[in-house]
């Protein structure tokens, strides 16, 4: 098996994991990421998402939502096929590494 580092950082892995099964608005993804102790400002978080978009791993679009008597917009994201593939590869990496470490094989690598 070729030994390669995962294509996603832990933060990207986490963000993609939130939208793996259904598309979500950016603020929900940010809340989940925050639950894992990642403190990012709104601007920094969306810059991260924009990079994922540019790399073709996710798609983002604005959708109108009604709050009270006002219609506003929020950015929603869905994962792309390339994104799912990258996420699976990363998961596989962590699983492989975890299994190897559990069996003490990593120390002989």
């Amino acid at each position: 098996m070729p030994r390669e580092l995962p294509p996603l950082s832990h933060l990207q892995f986490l963000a993609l994991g939130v939208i793996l099964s259904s598309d979500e608005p950016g603020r929900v993804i940010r809340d989940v990421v925050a639950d894992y102790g990642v403190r990012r400002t709104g601007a920094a978080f969306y810059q991260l998402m924009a990079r994922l978009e540019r790399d073709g791993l996710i798609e983002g679009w604005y959708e109108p939502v009604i709050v009270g008597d006002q219609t506003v917009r929020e950015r929603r994201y869905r994962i792309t096929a390339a994104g799912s593939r990258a996420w699976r590869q990363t998961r596989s990496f962590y699983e492989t590494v975890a299994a190897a470490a559990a069996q003490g094989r990593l120390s002989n690598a």
Partner: protein
Amino acid sequence: MLDSRLARALSALLPRRVVADAFEPAWEDLRVAYLIRRQRTKSPLGRAAQGASYLSFTVLLFLDCWRLAIVGWIQREPSTPARRIPPAITEPKQTERLHMFLYLVRHAFRQLVREPAFTVAALLTLALGVGANAAVFAVVDAVLLRPLPYPSADDLVILNHRDKQTGITKEFIAIGDFIDLSARQKAFESIGAWGRGETAFMDRDDPYRAEVLGVGANTLDVLRARPVLGRSINGDDTRENAPRVMMLGYETWKKRYAGDPTIIGRVIRMEATERQVVGVAPPGFTFPPTATTDIIIPYQFPTVAPAQRKSGWTFAVARLRPGRTLDDGATDLATMSRQFEKEFPQQNLASEYFPLGLRTALTGNTKPALLLLFAAVGVVLLIACANVANLLLARSLGRRREMSVRLALGAGGGRLVVQLLTESLVLALVAGTAGVLVAYWGAHALVALLPRSGDVPGLDDVRINGPVMAFTLGIVVLTTLVFGLVAALTVRSEKAVGVLNASRGSSIGTKARRVTSALVVAEVALAIMLLVGAGLILRSFAALLSVDPGFRTANVMTMSLQLPTNRYRDRGAREGFYTQALAQIKAIPGVQEVGMAAVTPLTGNNWTSPFERPEQPVPAGERPPEVGWQLASNGYFRALQIPLVAGRLFDDRDLPAAPPVVIVSEAIQKRFFPNESAVGKRVRLQGDQTAEIVGVVGNIRRAGLRDEPRADMYFPFERNKPGQTTLFVRTASNPERALPAITAAIKRFEPNAYVSEEQTLAHVASESERVTRVVLWLLGVFAVTSLALAAIGIYGVMSYAVRQRTREIGTRIALGATRGNIVWLVLRQGAVIAAIGTVVGLATGLGTTRFLASIMYGVKGTDPLTLSAAVVLLVITIMLACYVPARRAASVDPATTLAEQ
């Protein structure tokens, strides 16, 4: 809406990619979160707090986005772009330069991040300087520069009248003179009469209050207002006894009649009068620009000037013929005024007409005040620039070794200058961005402070637009050149080898020291100019506050009252209303007096009436002198506590059927009855009719606090009781508490009575000098800011000088100098700078105080108290700023210093 506008304005200042990637989605999240929280909050205070915090978070988001953009730049290696493009050897030279420039820009950002203390100090100083300038410019642009909403508006003038005997000017002209001026003038295309009023649409169940513009035959042509539907008002409509017609304002037509194209020809009832609609005005048309024009009606004029030429007055607007100037118009009007003086001496002697440009007429005394503030805020910017130049210079000198190494390694002097200029440019651009934010808030704060009572155009439309951004950019580029070049050229003149050979603590170059000292001298000079200006305005304001207007303004409520004309056409009906309503108002607990008058004092009103004693007629060929005109009730004098000097006030005897009576002020008694009592004497009214003087009351300053008390003549309100008047209600305590009860008492008798302009007389007095107060306040802020900046500047220079002279000071102490000697050594250096700056500043300042002339009152530009107070304040501040470095110098330990040597 404000939040969206703010977000749009901020996003315009960010790199496009950062807006799309980060700002826009994050701001939408902020908005959603804010709206959700707002829904859950019921209290207005809580909602206001949430709104404020939401706006603050928007600004923080903007700053965070800039942080991301800068960090992104800084993290990119200088060579990164080169790796992505074909080999350097084939690279066009232009691209190479661009990369070099980008490298320099990134380097400049790194420098800013590395030196946070310097960056914060320089950015704050510059952002405030640039922001305050842009804010004042935004208001100047809206009020003085933006075109008025009429084609070729610069050719429009307002005709004014001046009484050469009294010096009193009026912004309207006599009807008789208007008719003859219109026929004889040569400098204008035409002259149009106009006036404003109010009425109510009565064509439906809901009466609709409408603002009326009355016009003469040519007025709409003068203003180039072409109807979008139907026809304009013309000469046929302004003839006496012509059918009653009107034009609808475009917005009224759209709003009230849903843009009905068949409106032309319809008859609409306006209070008691029916008028046929003949046309619809163009979209957005109003006159004057700040007024609302719901309907336009024709004024009906005689075709020939009446024998009593000054029996009525009208406002008049004219358009200069192509190629004619305002001076041509003034000459033409002056010539005709002289003709009228010869032809009608008894009515027109010493009577003169002159034109004022429309904008000048509308802006009044706001224009000099704005220009003064613009100059003052410019001075603050100059001081800020000098300070930042000093900061940059000090930093550059601290980096002399770095520069020398670069020079030694072959970098050209020009390259170093470009690097330092780029650093200045980056600093200025970041400060400019922050300055725009300061300007955004500052401009709105300034608009809130300026008086709104006049017709000053543009105040409702102050915005940070293209010209303001261009102005800000201009300031930024200028400041970059000013302070960047000073620092860059000073460093360039340093000799590389000398600096490299010198030890770390080597003293500052003579040239650089001279430059820093000169900058501080300039700061001190500019600061004292502002201090003197603020001091003079402070003294003027104090003088105005101590002026006795001749009446008591405390605890008096005023309000305008208009009765529906259709129901109160009859005097008996009006009599009945006033009798009952006044009795009710007087019965309100706390109400002491109620009075009525036509003119509210201190509002600039200059209505006059000729004064002539029948037994001492003015010689043939002369005009009787004019005195102030007022229509007042008995209660007016009591409510305002204008003292009765002799005789009596008006009372129930002064009915329409009774012989006419008047009351005069003490000034009339003194001027026209020097050795006798005026009471019982007679004064000529129109024609052969005379009136008896029944009382003499104290003088008041009627038009404004700055006016000297004038001769006034009061006519009895009781005799006529018009349907439109101003009420004056004196109460035992805060008059605003009684306002609801007063309004209720009026509405009880006449629900359709129109009560407006409710304000206390103290507020009227305060508003009459609001321009002075605003100038005082802002000039004071600018002066204190400049003083603080100058103090910081001199502190910086002295601290640096002390650091550089540590060895010398140590040696002096070792040789026996006392702490006092050392403190004095340092203070003396500061005192020399302060003295030179003060002399230069005072010499320049004394020459510029004439620009304050229109705002100063009761004080001369050379007022010794103001000048000495400014100098003392400045000297104390500078000495305090020098004392800290002086103390530090005195605490130098000679043993340590000499050991280091």
